[in-house]
């Protein structure tokens, strides 16, 4: 028997090393020199989760702020979107190494231990920099207030939209005189529209892309249509599930029908829906962040809120908001700078609207510049018809609720579970979550979990 010497040993040692060396993602901590910018007296550290087009727009707004406020040195860091961001933010706040300013989805603020991991906004300071409650949609502002205290400053709302191709719809006779899609007010009308659009669609393309297998999108669409039906989730005291399986079944059947009637092809689920749209598919349901994508692709398109097929207008909305991660000694110039920066960006959000988001600061919406934006001016009404997740600690963008309930919606849409069965599962999952304790403070939603 030959003796393979050290080689194999080294190989095995190497294998052990590889097994141990997990891929640790390090936070994108500021790498610039730590010296203050030349004539600045205050530094504001700002963490956000904006990449791509949003990142570009945010950087442009920050540069404008820097120009107008040379005494403040903004040190911004962009971190990966999604759960990793919230984890880092939570750990930084817990370890008292938090930035002066952060960004969060509004729906997740309730579950983020406001008062423990988040500090409240100083309304007087905000007013000093020109931001007041009356400049916001009341429903939106209310979502940012927890136990009577403002913990988030909304920057925008971002909504789910029905994108349509004007060229295909024109051929199908579905465009009105104003060049916009004919209004749709019922389920049958909607499927009538799809039927006509399908006839006008090129071979090899589906009629509509709606992320049939994506747990987040399917959940967002469900929230929109369930809200259209007037469905509720929990009672006010958060002691009971008021979720209505009949209404839920109706919504799930509606979503499923897009596949069974041959309008959505599961092979083009996910991001392929947008690709098909660019290639000539007449419809896709996407977040408003797809606006710059379709602009770049030079598609002749329009966008409306999701069709009010159940009679009442409502489309899913989440919101990017500014937060103050907890610092034990919050105050002073850095805190003042954080208020000034957040107020500035909120008030100068026209640039932000180019990314498809609807600015939360309502005076922006009535400016001539905003009203000229296409297709933004077609869906700005979504601000007044927001369908949002319930205000509980386990809700919010890509949060626990979406992770638990989203796959159930997908199972119905994809046909692995009957809509009625799926609705029952959703209800029992909601009951389970309502009874569960928020790990941050050990309290259930009824006990005011996570509210300070």
């Amino acid at each position, binding site marked *: *028997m030959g003796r393979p010497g050290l080689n194999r040993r080294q190989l095995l040692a190497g294998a052990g090393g590889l097994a141990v060396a997990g891929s640790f993602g390090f936070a994108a901590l500021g790498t610039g020199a730590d010296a203050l910018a030349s004539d600045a007296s205050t530094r504001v550290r700002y963490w956000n989760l904006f990449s791509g087009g949003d990142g570009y727009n945010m950087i442009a707004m920050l540069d404008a702020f820097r120009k107008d406020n040379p005494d403040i040195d903004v040190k911004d860091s962009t971190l990966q979107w999604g759960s990793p961001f919230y*984890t880092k933010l939570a750990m930084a706040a817990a370890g008292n190494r938090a930035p002066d300013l952060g960004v969060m989805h509004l729906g997740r603020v309730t579950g983020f231990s406001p008062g423990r991991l988040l500090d409240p906004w100083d309304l007087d300071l905000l007013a000093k920099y020109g931001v007041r409650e009356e400049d916001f949609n009341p429903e939106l502002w209310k979502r940012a207030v927890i136990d009577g205290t403002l913990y988030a400053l909304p920057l925008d709302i971002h909504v789910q939209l029905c994108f349509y191709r004007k060229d295909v719809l024109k051929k199908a006779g579905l465009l009105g005189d104003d060049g916009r899609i004919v209004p749709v007010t019922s389920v049958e009308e909607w499927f009538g529209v799809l039927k006509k659009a399908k006839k006008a669609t090129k071979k090899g393309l589906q009629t509509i892309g709606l992320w049939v297998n994506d747990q987040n999108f399917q959940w967002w669409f469900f929230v929109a249509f369930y809200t259209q039906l007037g469905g509720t989730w929990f009672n006010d005291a958060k002691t009971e599930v008021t979720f209505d399986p009949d209404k839920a079944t109706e919504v799930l059947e509606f979503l499923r029908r897009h596949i069974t009637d041959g309008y959505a092809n*599961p*092979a083009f689920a996910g991001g392929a829906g947008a*690709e098909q749209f660019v290639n000539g598919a007449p419809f896709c349901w996407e977040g408003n962040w797809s606006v710059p994508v379709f602009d770049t692709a030079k598609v002749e398109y329009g966008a409306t809120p999701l069709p009010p097929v159940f009679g009442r207008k409502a489309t899913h909305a989440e919101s990017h908001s500014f937060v103050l991660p907890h610092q034990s000694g919050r105050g002073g110039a850095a805190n003042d700078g954080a208020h000034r920066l957040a107020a500035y960006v909120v008030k100068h959000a026209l640039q932000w609207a180019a990314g498809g988001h609807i600015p939360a600061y309502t005076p922006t919406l009535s400016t001539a510049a905003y009203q000229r934006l296409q297709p933004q001016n077609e869906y700005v009404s979504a601000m007044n018809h927001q369908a949002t997740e319930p205000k509980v600690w386990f809700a919010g963008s890509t949060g626990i609720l979406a992770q638990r309930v989203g796959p159930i919606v*997908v199972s119905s849409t*994809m046909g692995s579970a009957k809509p009625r069965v799926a609705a029952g599962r959703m209800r029992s999952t909601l009951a389970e979550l309502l009874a569960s304790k928020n790990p*941050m403070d050990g309290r259930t939603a009824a006990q005011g979990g996570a509210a300070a």
Partner: protein
Amino acid sequence: MTTTSAETVLRPARTRAAVGSATVRRKQGFQHGGWFVAPFLLLFALFVIWPLLRGLYLSFTDANISGDSPGFVGLDNYREALHDPLMWDSLGHSAYFTLLVVPCITVLAFLLAMLAHHIERGKWLWRLCFFLPFLLPSTVAGNLWQWLFNPGTGMVNYVFGLDTPWLTDKSYALLAAVLTTLWWTVGFSFLLYLAALQGIPAHLYEAAKLDGANAWHRMVHITLPMLRNITGLVIALQILASLQVFDQVVVMQDFGPGPENSTRTFVQYTLEQGFTTYRVGYASAMSIIFFVLIAAVALARMWLLRNREEGGR
């Protein structure tokens, strides 16, 4: 049956303890050897033993991510984990993945090694081709195959004329990860086999040839028995690695749990509980359960192997 040196590395031969059994020599040996292993022991204690003990402690608490001092909850986390359908689901996915990957990779690695061993021209090229994917980081391998499996634009469906929704249908999503893993990691086992093949003395084959054994007989009666230990090693290493599958699967599913939760692995679920749901105590309990499971697999293998050796075959 002699053990290969790969075995020796993993399991020091028991005869070695008998050598130098004189106390003096052993003492001296420790004095010198102790210093040599000290850096390793220090790091091992710091990065393996201490976190393990800390994790064990946390698994009996309701610790969250905020760093507040946690409360003691006894065995609650363990009780909850054992009744958590999502945990069993994710364990099932990891087990299913392991059951598919281990036999496939073992057979494939053996066949490729035979090919590379017997081929006369361009041997280095074959070795390089089979081993190269293993050098890629998991994110690269995952992303690469995400493109290849894309139903609309991917090469896999195009080449085979299929219309399979590889990544978006719960029936295929985990299978796609298995295929990716085969391509990505077979090179490692291939190399083990190749080294072992080269270690089989040529005179055995010559003798067999003289006795009139054909190629098939030579493989069945010489090659396979001589490779028995390396096969055991490959299988064991693959089981341990496959049970801990995580990175390529999450990369291919964009860090989600796959269509209808069909690809969420045990490690992924532990991570989600710890860092998405912030239940550090619960995640620690799951990690400990997993640690016990993996340790049991490793011990079972050692025990089986010892029995086989003592049985003389």
